[in-house]
């Protein structure tokens, strides 16, 4: 084949810088979207628990949309579609403030929120009603029962799926490349197109992705073991 594996070629000077920028952007996307997703996810869960039926339907609609439309399409809708229907002033502002990054974060965050609220809801639901009764029977009021008895148990149940969501979010940031966000995959292709060392470039990116993914998986396994209470 006459093909020499030469990782150094892609890890020098400007190319190394591109990789680092790519990784930084990926991490920034992940963090921002995670914060947005958790916030909205928690808000949605609280809203759902209100005794007002139409609210449950609204949230259910939100969840179904985000689960049945591909994430890439959601990103395209946000990037190409939404600015068109916004007032001109906002559109201009978005364009001059890293529009693609912002819109990618919004798309990723809102999609995450849908999954997060489902995980939270099933976590809370899985706590038997009798736990609440026992707490109230001691004399705790609603808030106390929730804080001291229900929520601590719900958190234990909910943390492993949430860590899994984080892993998915991290991987999904790669989709932002489709709208030009300079995250790791985008930068990898840049390096590839300049150096023609496709294999090396993608190998580096793969190693970076796998390292972080495996780290998150390990945290998940650890949390799973520690938090596993026989909730009988």
């Amino acid at each position, binding site marked *: 084949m006459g093909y020499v594996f030469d990782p150094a070629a892609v890890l020098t000077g400007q190319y190394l810088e591109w990789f680092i920028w790519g990784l930084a952007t990926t991490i920034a996307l992940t963090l921002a979207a995670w914060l947005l997703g958790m916030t909205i996810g928690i808000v949605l869960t609280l809203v759902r628990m209100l005794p007002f039926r139409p609210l449950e339907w609204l949230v259910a609609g939100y969840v179904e949309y985000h689960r049945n439309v591909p994430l890439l399409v959601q990103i395209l809708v946000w990037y190409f579609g939404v600015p068109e229907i916004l007032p001109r002033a906002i559109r201009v502002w978005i364009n001059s403030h890293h529009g693609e990054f912002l819109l990618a974060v919004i798309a990723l965050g809102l999609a995450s929120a849908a999954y997060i609220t489902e995980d939270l809801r099933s976590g809370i639901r899985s706590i038997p009603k*009798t*736990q609440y*009764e*026992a*707490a*109230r*029977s*001691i*004399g*705790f*009021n609603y808030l*106390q029962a929730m804080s*001291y*008895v229900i929520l*601590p*148990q719900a958190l*234990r149940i909910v943390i492993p799926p949430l860590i899994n969501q984080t892993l998915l979010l991290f991987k999904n940031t790669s989709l932002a490349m489709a709208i030009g966000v300079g995250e790791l995959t985008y930068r990898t292709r840049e390096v590839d197109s300049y150096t023609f060392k496709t294999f090396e470039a993608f190998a580096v990116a793969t190693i970076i992705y796998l390292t972080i993914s495996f780290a998150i998986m390990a945290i998940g396994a650890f949390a799973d073991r520690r938090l596993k*209470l*026989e*909730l*009988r």
Partner: protein
Amino acid sequence: MIRFETVEKWYGQHQVLAGVTGEVKRGEVVTLIGSSGSGKSTLIRTVTRLENVQGGKVLFEGVDVAGRSVDINRLRQRIGFVFQAFNLFPHLTAAGNITLGLERLRKMRKAAARERAMTELHRVGLADKADMLPSRLSGGQRQRVAIARALAMDPDVMLFDEPTSALDPEMVGEVLRVMKTLAQNGMTMVVVTHEIGFAREVADTVWFLDKGQIVESGPPAGVLDNAGDGRLRSFLSRTC
């Protein structure tokens, strides 16, 4: 101390309590017996408003428990409730289950709460299991911790909803022993149970419920031995 005045309750179309009237005096031990669906669990749950009544009144020390001015949480602190399914908090140790209420409601300091918890655990014979999680305890041990948890709040009366029904036979004894000691020390108790032997030995009064009404009531010997004909006799012949 507890008075039921023609208490009525429906689940949809089905009437589960059909005019129950009775009184539990201070220091008295009352056992409720009857087949499933007779309303005995529902009746005991109305005392702390775990169930609401649609007709009649449930009175605790002369006050209607459903009254608007009643602070239900304070009321529940004065009434201890032991569940059939124990309902221990799985994320807390045995001692932790007990100190939770003491620290948060009685505002006790950690050390004082711990000491009190240990006293109660000692009373039920489980001082050595204080720092174990419920998952490591047997059914009988869990129920005893549940009793200790209820006792730690210094209740005026203890309510037991089929406390031994979920236990394997060999563990029933240890729980009944704890309850017997409680009774002998003068605690007011209302116990829903299938353990006729316990009723005979420990109860001051037995209520036999059928189809949402108290059909027979009186001292155990009288009720159980002179069962006469009818529903009580057939119930007893089925359970003994």
